[in-house]
């Protein structure tokens, strides 16, 4: 039953093939607003590189929002060719696989049950939410890969690599600061699944503080490197990080921010920008406190928050959330993930604690079909108007929210377990049914 793991190499080769072969509609993907946002768009990356090569400050114009690190890598070391995105996809899939192995307690070098591992790798490489932005050469692929690398290193107990990876992620996309606390918690505890048995946080808080200082050190070094690469200016801070906070570019995307701030009057803009940014941040502490027994699950839930409420959302962000769901078979309950060799923490049943997986799936399906359709109707054909696309983005928001709420519920419900008690009412002789509820 121990087949050689071949799915990962096969899928990686297919991905490389897709990167190298010229596909018919591939140049159109770069312009699609669902797959790339102004912060991650390939066109803007090329434009920034051209401006940089021609001695014009790329951050002055309001069209380039990428980090100076990307600018320097793509202008000096290697041009932005599609192979890099294929490599990044492969790295992300490998990181997800290692994360699974770390969570299950297997050795990182030798997997056991190939079905689960092949499903996990397929869940990352074949997820259209992740594949299409990668084919559109959106830099969200790099952000996802760095996020997964950070989680992988943290799960394997390698603090410096994890902190460096999360520092890179925060540098590329400042909203990823949400993941810093769960990663610090993960570094001082173990990634093994404790969802079924919640207990108090047993890590060392002082060690967490010292790791935080180390992460800040790495982050400052990156900021310094970026300043040097951007010729000693601070323009890039306003252009790349300030874009997530101030929303200068109102290009439509599947998220909730763009239409809200298009229709907002100038007087209220700063207040609502503050509200939306704070809304992202307030999820950190409650989720980390509630899931202090399983920080990897807390990180997963915060990725769900990012995948719904991020400033410049693309399909890659909910895509990462959905792909990471495969790491938690105790929650989604798919039977192909279980084996005879599973650790006892997993419940070997086929049941799932997700309340409404069908609803979430269908909402995602609706959103994925409606978003490109309404976009084309609005801007290309002129038969619809902006409200059509806004409605589709609201469906996407509902889909992301449904998935997030579902996962949160399931993560807590699994701790309660099934109610096997059937009490007998006194004197009646009838069986009484009990159920678990919240009040």
């Amino acid at each position, binding site marked *: 039953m121990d087949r050689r793991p071949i799915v990962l190499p096969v899928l990686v080769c297919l991905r490389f093939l897709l990167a190298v072969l010229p596909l018919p509609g591939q140049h159109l993907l770069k*312009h699609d*607003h669902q797959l790339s946002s102004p912060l991650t768009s390939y*066109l803007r990356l*090329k*434009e920034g*590189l*051209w*401006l940089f090569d*021609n001695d*014009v*400050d790329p951050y*002055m*114009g*309001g*069209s380039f929002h990428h980090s100076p690190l990307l600018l320097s890598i793509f202008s000096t070391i290697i041009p932005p060719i599609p192979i890099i995105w294929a490599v990044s996809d492969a790295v992300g899939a490998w990181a997800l696989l290692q994360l699974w192995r770390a969570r299950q307690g297997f050795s990182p070098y030798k997997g056991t049950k190939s079905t689960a591992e092949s499903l996990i790798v397929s869940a990352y490489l074949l997820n259209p939410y992740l594949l299409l932005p990668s084919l559109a050469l959106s830099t969200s692929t790099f952000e996802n890969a760095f996020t997964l690398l950070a989680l992988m290193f943290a799960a394997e107990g390698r603090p410096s690599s994890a902190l460096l990876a999360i520092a890179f992620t925060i540098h590329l996309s400042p909203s990823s600061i949400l993941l810093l606390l769960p990663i610090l918690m993960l570094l001082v505890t173990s990634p093994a699944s404790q969802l079924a048995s919640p207990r108090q946080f047993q890590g060392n808080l002082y060690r967490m503080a010292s790791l935080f200082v180390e992460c800040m050190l790495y982050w400052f070094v990156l900021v310094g490197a970026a300043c040097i690469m951007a010729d000693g200016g601070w323009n890039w801070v306003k252009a790349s990080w300030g874009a997530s906070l101030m929303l200068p*570019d*109102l*290009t439509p995307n599947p998220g*909730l921010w*763009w*239409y*809200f*701030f*298009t*229709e*907002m*009057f*100038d007087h209220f803009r700063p207040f609502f920008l503050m509200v939306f940014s704070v*809304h992202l941040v307030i*999820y950190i502490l*409650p*989720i980390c406190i509630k899931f202090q027994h399983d920080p990897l699950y807390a990180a997963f839930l915060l990725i769900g928050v990012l995948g*719904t*409420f991020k400033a410049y959302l693309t399909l890659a962000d909910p895509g990462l959330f959905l792909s990471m769901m495969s790491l938690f078979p105790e929650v989604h309950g798919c039977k192909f993930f279980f084996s005879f060799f599973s650790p006892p923490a997993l419940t070997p049943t086929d049941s799932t604690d997700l309340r409404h997986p069908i609803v979430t799936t269908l909402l995602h399906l609706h959103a994925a079909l409606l978003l490109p359709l309404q976009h084309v109707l*609005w*801007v*290309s054909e002129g038969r619809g*108007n*902006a*409200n059509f696309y*806004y409605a589709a983005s*609201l469906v996407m*928001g*509902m889909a992301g*929210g449904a998935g*997030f*709420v579902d996962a*949160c519920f399931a993560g*807590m419900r699994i701790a*309660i377990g099934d109610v096997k*008690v059937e*009490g007998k009412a006194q004197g009646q002789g009838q069986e*009484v*049914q*009990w*159920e*678990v*509820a*919240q*009040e």
Partner: protein
Amino acid sequence: MVRGSVWISLAYLLTPSFCLHRLENYKEDLRVKPLRDGRVSTTFSFLTVLEDAVPRHPTTLELPDEPQHYALFPLTLGQILREYAITELHLSLNAGKWNYDDWGHPPEVSVGTGAELWAWMGVNEVMTIDERWSGLRNALSGLFCASLGSLDSRRTTSPVVAFPLSGSTPPFAQHELRHASLASENVCTENLTPFLKLLPCKSRAGLAELLNPQKVFDADWHGMGVHVIWKEGTGVELKLTLQAVFNPVRTSTGKRRDWSLQSLFDRSIEQSCPVANYSSVTVVLPEEKNYQITPQPPVQVDGLAIYDLSSTSDFTIPTNIAMHWSNEHRFQYPMPPLPALTPLSVKRTLHGTTQTRGVLSISVTNNSPQEILAGYLEMIPTLLTLWMHTLKVEINSDTRSMTYSHKMLPLLIIVLRLGDLLSDLKYQPPSPQPNGHLSPSMLQAALTIPPKSTLKISVEVDKAFLKYTEHPPDAMRGWDLPGAVFFPLSKSANDTSSSYNWERIYTPTLLVDLPTPDFSMPYNVIILSCTLMTLIFGSIFNLLTRKWVVVEIKE
């Protein structure tokens, strides 16, 4: 009668005054030129010269200005020029599209559609150039009843190569240029009336009597201009111009191209302006001699018929100057293809069917047998984002004599020559301004166009998504993109003499169709988005804070 007014005007000019007094002289001229497509181009130019005057030194802006006394120079404009220490000012308000191919180069070069304002000012730290530019725009918009106040930093650039100082450079300060244009500005009678008020004789005497708004604004193309230039030996020159291209074929009953001052303007010159030193009507005589011109021109030189209407001349005011082609029954348009009257023909289009992106493409045709070196200037407001890395230059020769066997060779030639077809590319991206907006992006290049060939430049553009409050009331119409400007460049650095026979060429404006949000939706969007976020937040809040209990299911 005429001599009496001459004596009066001379006495007026020589009257001493207590204030600083300068000699002023005033000249007016009307130039009429029949065009080959039956139209008639008329150019009024009213030139007032304030002799030995110097533009105000910008460092004296903190102190009150010394009193200025003008006899002929308009006080309102003079006050504006002194208030903001303007050295050179050009304002043009045009409507229509100047057809360079059929009408040639215009006598006054600023023919860009809409309002175009540019000024050279000396640098000063106390009152900065941008403050003075803002004051100038508002003052001129009040003076001319034009919405020049909206030419703010979103439309202001500084293209010093294309718009150099026309006069002399004052030695007292470093000068900077501010240029802005508004292509959607409409020109109407409210702009003509204050324009005429700047003339010494207003519209009561002299050539300005002809300016009938109902006829002028019915013309196929019309535009007025205000140009203030300082020339070192001469002084401050104010030139007010009004150009109009009439179409007698359209307005006449028999589709004839005969014109007369009465038929064009529906007015006649009753009396000449007494304070004008020189007043004339110049008619450019057509090349074919099948016309008759009445009255007989007293002076005919260089293909020009000059009628001197000054009050000092002996010539009696003619009631009407007319030209007719009696042998023609009705005007026959010359059959195309016609040779272009200008050496360069330019065309600019915006391709694309979607409201998100398009391709801006410019095609420049060199009709002359010599190579032309021209500068290309594009000032694009931030509603279009240029993707400069997609800039492509193509050369398409008119002579298609390449045979199949040489197909590879021309490709090589094309590759080698692209580098010097477009050189000196300077791109200035939009820069953030103090009022939070972005300035326009400026693209300048030097084009070398080989003889008898067409150069095509194309660049991909992205259309911006504007905020709700940034859209104009008629948002569905779109935005006007100001025309690109082509200007002559000298081949070598020491060849700076203006030996060109053309000064600037403007391309027509383009309409950019931007995607609009739904303007009825602010409240709905806020409540729907906030509801969704609150529902999710509330669900999570409930999940995280409630405690789990086991309850009995009642049957």
